[in-house]
């Protein structure tokens, strides 16, 4: 478990990062928190020839409400979300979710954007980004482009970020006061990747759901937003029956993945439970 040989550079600015990425192409790899990459290198599953450490570029570490969204920089650590980072429902939502990511020391190093760029199917932040339809800012030496979560995630460990790209910023929509959220995940131990999880956000007015966001993670090659079920929820009064129906539909809609910890059958039943619990918490 010693990594294969690599070169290490530590650019001091965004421009230098982009230049390094352009220069090294497929051979270079960004090192953010290192909480996924370093382990992969030790197992020799990842063998970058050049490690481009972005931790020296401190101005990538920011959290900035701007307009109707929250901008998250490329070096913002998970731990930054332990307390609500913005007024309104988004801050507590993120604070609730972050506690399920790994363990305290790992959260001090691992980054929000790093999780998205890494795209583990059971990443909590990928579920948040998918469910809330985050907007990604991808930059390289040539220029920059924006991309929504629905187009960003391509599958297990693959995204729209190319070999020469930096995922520079992620924007999450600020939710106004009518929104409430619920999150539930089941993992084998505290801090483990989820076997299944769900994030639900409901906008409630006069006892009715006017808008809904519903996503499921950890059950397929990427987080899944359940648009059809969001529509199903909209316009209805929250109730146990409604949520049971939606949870059953979610279970039917997804063809789950299998691994040593969960069979497809088991995951299907988990999907029902996590969706039901997330919705119930959101409406509580």
């Amino acid at each position, binding site marked *: 478990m010693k990594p294969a040989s690599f070169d290490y550079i530590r650019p001091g600015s965004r421009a230098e990062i982009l230049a390094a990425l352009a220069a090294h192409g497929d051979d270079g790899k960004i090192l953010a928190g290192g909480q996924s990459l370093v382990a992969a290198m030790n197992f020799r599953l990842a063998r970058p020839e050049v490690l481009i450490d972005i931790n020296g570029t401190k101005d990538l570490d920011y959290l900035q409400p701007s307009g109707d969204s929250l901008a998250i920089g490329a070096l913002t650590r998970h731990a930054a979300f332990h307390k609500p980072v913005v007024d309104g429902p988004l801050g507590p939502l993120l604070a609730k979710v972050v506690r399920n990511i790994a363990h305290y020391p790992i959260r001090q190093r691992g980054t929000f954007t790093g999780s998205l760029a890494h795209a583990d199917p059971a990443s909590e932040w990928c579920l948040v980004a998918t469910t809330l339809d985050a907007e990604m800012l991808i930059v390289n030496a040539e220029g920059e482009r924006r991309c929504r979560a629905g187009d960003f995630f391509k599958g297990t460990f693959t995204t729209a970020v190319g070999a020469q790209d930096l995922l520079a910023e992620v924007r999450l929509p600020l939710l106004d006061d009518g929104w409430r959220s619920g999150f539930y995940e089941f993992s084998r131990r505290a*801090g483990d990747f989820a076997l299944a999880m769900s994030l639900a956000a409901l906008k409630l007015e006069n006892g009715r759901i006017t808008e809904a966001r519903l996503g499921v993670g950890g059950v397929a090659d990427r987080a899944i937003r359940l648009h059809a079920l969001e529509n199903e929820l909209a316009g209805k009064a929250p109730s146990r029956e409604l949520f049971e129906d939606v949870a059953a539909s979610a279970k039917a809609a997804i063809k789950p993945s299998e691994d040593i910890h969960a069979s497809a059958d088991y995951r299907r039943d988990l999907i029902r439970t996590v969706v039901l619990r997330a919705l119930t918490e959101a409406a509580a």
Partner: protein
Amino acid sequence: MSAIGRSLKRLEDRPLLTGDGCFAADNRADGQVHMRIVRSPIAFGRILDIETDEAKALPGVIAVWTAADIADLPPIDFRMTRIAGLEPYRQHVLARDYVRYVGDPVAVVFADNPYIAEDAAELVFCDIEEETPCLDATADPVAFMPERDPALLSEAAVITKSYGDMEAAFAGAAAIIEMELKVGRHTGVPLETRGALAVRDPETGVLTMYGAAKVPHYNRDSIARMLGLEPEQVRLSEGHVGGGFGIRGELYPEDVLVCAAACRLGVPVKWVEDRREHLMAANHSRDQVHRIKAAVDANGFVRGLVDTFYTDQGGYVRTHGGTVSDLAAALLPGPYLIPAYHVEGHIRLTNKTPSGTYRAPGRYETTFVRERLMDAIAARLGLDPMEVRRVNLIPEDRMPFDRGIEALGTHVLYDSGKYHDLLDRTLTRIGYQDLKADLARRRVAGEAVGLGIAFFVEKSGLGPHDLVTMAVQPDDTIEIVTGAASVGQGVETAMAQICSDVLGVPIERIRVIHGQTDRIAIGFGAFASRVTVMTGSAVKIAAEALRDKAIALAAPLLQADVRTLTLEMGCVVSRDSGATIGLAEIVAQSGKDLDAEGLFRADHMNYPYGIHVAQVRVDEAVSGIQVERYLVAYDVGRAINPMLIEGQIVGAAAQGIGGALLEEFIYNEEGQPLATSFADYLMPTCHEMPPVEVLLREDAPSPQNPLGVKGAGEGGITAVGAAIAAAVDDALGRPGLITSLPISPRRLHALLRR
């Protein structure tokens, strides 16, 4: 005040807490080279060719060996439980002709640094003709190495033990209960992986291996034999050890390789195992399937019990020989009378990592089997599970109780025990009736909560003997030298307390040297919960001899009659004159050494016992299990240091919970291990652990040693699987549901859906 029975702080802790510990990887020597093992990527196959040229050509590589380069080395022999017929299944240090599990060492690289060593290891190419692996120990035996010896089958031995009139037992039975029960494959996972540094002194020719653990004397003799050296030419030295649990410190291929390389390459050789290797190379354990049949009467009394079981031994038979299966066979009856018993234990080779002993070997498995049976009897006959146990427990007046069979070559003779009494105390402690009522109320309110209670008998203090030497030093400290080993269990403190009890010297003035083969002629190391019993008794004997010698030497100095002298607080005191003289002063004034030896022999093991109580909550919708409360009641005979014992019990309970709920070495159909990192091999963490209560008792001291002590290293783990399984059944209101460990959510889900 007596030093025995007090929760004194550990002498071992200062260096550990101040960063002065010296673990295997901390050893270094000038000019050392690093060793890396090339491991088989395939579970079973014939080796056609091993291509090493590319690896040898890499700059920084010193040598690459395959089996052909060390053809003179014999296979690693058994340390224990040498059963006839096991020899052909021993492991060579590098695979010959066949690979038998993923992780089987096929080649070894020596290089300037561990990075180059790993680079080079990747360049070694193994051409292996794959064969269908055997992964099920209950399936019919197959050829072990088909081309080499088609007649040698994968069943290495069958252990049979038997007593009583089985026909009569079954003839008059009110009910016959049959069950199949399985304990999965898991093992002790020390925080510190294995590692060693071997250095050969060019002047003296003495080969030293640092990083030894558990059984240094035995391993010294084995290494010397394998390398054709005299035992005096080999020295093993133990430093700090980050956990043993039975698996660490046995003689493995890597230990022999570092030593062989240090001799043949003429440079110090260092090896540090990584975690991935550890999970597929160090001994696995458990992995037994039991098929039992019991004849019971109307009160639930077991008249006769027949068991056929299969131990999945993995790729080879390692140093433990038949130990695990032998102990399983001998100790399955546990605390119950069971007048007729017949067991047949099949040791079967498969294409998984070889297995050996892990904390409470054979007892964790068979306690699960036996206690599941007790619960099944209660369910079948509509009796209270505690009543069924009471009916079966060996009564106090039958002690000492002769089981009529042998374990590890010694007669199974339960030395002492008040089983019914401990059951009563345990039920009182937890408020059994109230607790049951409380859980019933919670169940009515919709929660799936339940209680499981399991009884066990442990064994400890394996002989044949143990030796310590003891000497007063010029600085007025006392040095105790023992051939026991420390695997973190508090040996130094416990030995010092026993010595202090006799001599009145505070434990801070007692130094305990252990695990150094050049300091004492014989030593048995640390296993089988033997150290406090065997070494502790030897310390007491030595300390008493030292005391008598001190008094004899002091008499002329104090001009007093020996009969008027006593030893108090480390000084010889004259009752008549009140004059005193310290131990170092006696040495100085008499000009004689003040030292002594203690040799303790034991023909039989002794048998501590206890009860585990688990309270769990099942979240049926996600198939999750949470342990809400855990209690271990344990009779240790005599507690030298209650804090150390509690530490042993709580740590062991955590490992037991791991084996019951989380830890499992899973293989796919090709024999690829799927749990080779901590992401998939799940150890319990503080989040998964309930508070563990310990009810420590000294009601049944052992009559077999001068301290009355029994071992405490294993009882915290023995009944965890059994207690949790019972609690899950109870929580779900489905007696007999759990027949297999670990109760992973995936498995529980499948059961609940059935």
